[in-house]
């Protein structure tokens, strides 16, 4: 199993960009916030997960692509936590880098990244159908897998399907 230190070293460019974006967004929005480093942890066997604010995801992905040549998005995982929906953007380049963010169920919207990474289009559509997350800026946001005329609500949400 890879250690968090070796992964941090491997993704030093990406982490630098992430911290820069997060620090900017913190200084923009909040006063008195002292914690300006994005929290990191290891998802075994080989992924570094970094928690970032949902407003920063688009900017971070743009910078990872531009400055770190990190452009392979494996997929986006969504998980219903009850009060929130977690989104995980799994990037991969020899090792995995996962950007984690969360949205409140009262406002399930996040800026779409397909303008910079068109490969995310199907993953965003799938999450829109299964979890009802609105990806703002995705011009063709239809459910990917659900039948036409599906009325029962997003099937992977707990409120639709008791977990």
């Amino acid at each position, binding site marked *: 199993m890879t250690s968090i230190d070796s992964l941090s070293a491997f993704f030093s460019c990406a982490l630098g960009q992430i911290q820069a974006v997060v620090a900017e967004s913190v200084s923009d929005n909040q006063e008195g916030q002292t914690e300006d480093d994005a929290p990191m942890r290891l998802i075994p066997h080989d992924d570094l997960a970094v928690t970032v604010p949902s407003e920063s995801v688009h900017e971070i992905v743009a910078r990872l692509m531009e400055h770190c040549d990190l452009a392979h998005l494996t997929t986006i995982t969504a998980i219903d936590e009850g009060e929130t929906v977690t989104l995980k953007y799994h990037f991969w380049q*020899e090792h*995995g880098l996962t950007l984690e963010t969360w949205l409140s169920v009262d406002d399930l919207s996040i800026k779409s990244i397909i303008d910079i990474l068109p490969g995310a289009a199907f993953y965003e559509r799938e999450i829109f159908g299964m979890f009802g997350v609105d990806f703002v800026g995705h011009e063709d946001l239809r459910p*990917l897998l659900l039948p036409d005329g599906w009325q029962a609500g997003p099937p992977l949400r707990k409120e639709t399907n008791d977990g």
Partner: protein
Amino acid sequence: MVKTVMPIGPQHPLLKEPISFQLTLEGEHVTDSALRMGYVHRGIERMCQRRSYIQNIHLVERVCGICSHVHAFTYCQAVETLLDIEAPPRAVYLRALLCELERIHSHLLWLGVLGQNIGLDTVFMYAWRDREIVLDVMEALSGGRVSHAINVIGGTRRDITAKQQAHVMEQLDLLEQQVELAYDFVVHERTLQARTRGIGHLSLEQVKRYCVVGPVARASGLDVDVRRDSPRPPYDALSFKVPVHHDGDVWARTLIRMEEMRESVYLCRQLLADLPDGPVTTRAARRVPAGEAISRSEAPRGEVFYYIRSDGSDSPARVKIRTPTLTSLITLPDQLADVAVADISVVLSGVDLCIACADR
């Protein structure tokens, strides 16, 4: 010129699985296309949350009817990560052996489908005849031709005997001979080249933008392979080449798959020759502790991804599966742009679609 909208599917003779395309034609050429999927969506990710970790092995094996083993294997690998155990070396080698045999089986099947779709039935007959060798070998090893059910959490369900090992080695010689024959035939077959060269073109830039994986990406010059770039045992101890071509058309994808079959035969030989002794299972706790795990492996069509979250209960809290076909489907409108009607089947065959995988 008059525009005609031509619907293809969801049921159609071209692919054996349901998917629908709306193609806008101007004369003989496609100007616009849209696809609709989800016809074989079975809700496997959700079903996984309702079943135990052990039941799920059999469920995820049914995500795909061609690369069934790689799904069960990648899933078990993720659960083993959660349990913080490792499969014994012998099991790791047996799993990889099945993976490589499955790659040969999948590529031969694909070659036959390509041949049939472009009207070259000879290729279909030969490729599917030789595919029987692989299926028989897999049956001898696992007991099943398509669904092998050989993975358990912590190893494999079956061991192989020295006699079986010798039998597989023997069959590999035959297989290699047939793979070489097929390679020779394909490379020198002018009809095949005439139908596939320049068709379904994807540039390196496009495959990167669409995050494409597997043979389709490698045919456009993207040198990527999970087995080599993110090696887990036994691939860190094996030597193999990752074929890369730069033309980005169906012809390049054909060559990639032909060369990959050759490499897989070499890999099978190495795996059998170096097969470690010892048990094939390690003791795995029934109770999976809370946590998360990610597992990736190289299926015949590219990177397969499993994310599992455990909350400490009997069933996983979330299982996310990303299959490689999803990444190829998204490129189809680009590939279909401006192709002639007669070449639509070549484009669709070239990417090696597995709709059941993509729909889950």
